[in-house]
């Protein structure tokens, strides 16, 4: 087999520079061919997704908004070990650790917790490495379809614990569902 006859795509075409005959030089046939091609597109399925009403289906491994999890008793899992911040390639995560007081046992699972936990959504690339690094199952990237809304202030893109921590009632509901099972 010579190199000329190999065609991996099966669509290989040798370019010929032969002189055009009279009808080809008229271009009328070529124009009609072109018109047929364009009119075929008129009847094709449109590729447009009507965005606000219609949303593209997300991939099953889609990674969306982060969430800091609570356990079955509604206590925060995060111990502010900093591994997520360390693993973050975009350096989007910052946190400040604090020691749990005696009267806060119902709030935090372990003796150390994150007093401040912030993710800069302008830096985050949603790679999910924080989720992989977390030893306490505290941070997860959810499949939430709510995207980070646009804003005029940079401060609005730094998400603190008020936006990141899982709401308590959802945690309790999850725990109930688990108990029923």
């Amino acid at each position: 087999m010579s190199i000329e006859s190999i065609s991996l795509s099966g669509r290989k075409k040798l370019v010929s520079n032969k002189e055009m005959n009279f009808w080809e030089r008229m271009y009328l046939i070529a124009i009609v061919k072109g018109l047929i091609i364009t009119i075929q597109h008129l009847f094709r399925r449109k590729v447009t997704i009507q965005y606000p009403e219609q949303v593209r289906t997300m991939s099953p491994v889609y990674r969306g908004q982060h969430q800091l999890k609570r356990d079955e008793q509604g206590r925060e899992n995060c111990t502010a070990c900093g591994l997520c911040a360390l693993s973050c390639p975009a350096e989007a995560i910052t946190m400040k650790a604090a020691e749990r007081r005696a009267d806060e046992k119902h709030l935090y699972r372990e003796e150390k917790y994150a007093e401040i936990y912030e993710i800069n959504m302008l830096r985050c690339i949603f790679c999910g490495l924080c989720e992989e690094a977390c030893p306490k199952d505290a941070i997860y990237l959810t499949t939430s379809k709510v995207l980070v809304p646009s804003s005029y202030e940079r401060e609005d893109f730094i998400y603190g614990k008020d936006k990141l921590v899982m709401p308590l009632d959802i945690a309790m509901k999850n725990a109930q569902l688990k108990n029923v099972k």
Partner: protein
Amino acid sequence: MDSTIIIEKSVIIVAVFALTMLMAMYSTWAERKVAAWLQDRVGPNRAGPFGLFQPLADGLKLFSKEEFEPNTPNRFLFFVGPAIAMSTALMTSAVIPWGDKLHLFGRDILLQATDLNIGLLYFFGVVSVGVYGIMIGGWASNNKFSLMGAVRAASQMVSYEVAMGLSMIALLMMTGTLSLREISAQQAGMNWNVFYQPLSFVIFLICAFAEANRTPFDLAECESELIGGYHTEYSSMKMGFYLFAEYANMFISSTILAVLFFGGYNYPGMSWAVENWGVNIANVLGFGALFIKLCGFIFFFMWVRWTIPRFRYDQLMHLGWRILIPLSIINIMIVGVVILRAEIFAYLGF
């Protein structure tokens, strides 16, 4: 002259004016829709059902734009340019027969603003004045890109008008009249001129594209080379007038094509309809037939726009002077031989 004819004619004039404006408006909508469909998109669909209010939104936007004026010594010409383009585009519709006649209030009403016996010449005359709008606008803009566009438009118009006129001569030799009403009437039944004069039709079609400044002949405003050509410096409604004039021209060109070659208001079975359903219904249907034909041509204009890329300038001139003009002269000779075939055969002794 009695006053009823004045009323009758003014009603027709207003109706034709409104129709031209409406068609120009909705051509912009149709252009965007067809462009979108041919590119597998949906097109404007937010303003009203199927985006039907899009032209209104566009007009509102153009009206509310800043009225920019370049620092030009020809301020008067700068204003006159769009006005000429618009008024010539609207003037051509005067001679088009929209139907044969209606029988209302005990009198026959011709569905035509005026039945000039030189209707076709009038059409050519007014269309060729249309290029002055572009030329004056491009000149007065005091901008080299605008001037370039204007020069291109002028040379293109001059070149293609010749071929267009020659292709018409072949048709006129056959019809023997310049009145568009008579040409329409001659095509009754299925005697459409396109079957007798296919070559004339092709040449006229190509020239109509050039006259209307449509792709592939839109060198006057090719945005990749000349920004916007002659309307680079225009904004607001002056710009809107140029765009509007282009679409009105396209509408008129489509109508002329339908009238000259595709039987005008005639449709198969029209004489039967006149006998059985009466003149009025038959002619309303006739207007519908003309409307469908011209919409088909408008669609064709848009279809071609998304098929054929723009010509290069030298290709344009080559096509006009070295192909279309000789071809139309040959066409004239063929038509002449066919018309005089009896005499020629007699002379040769058959």
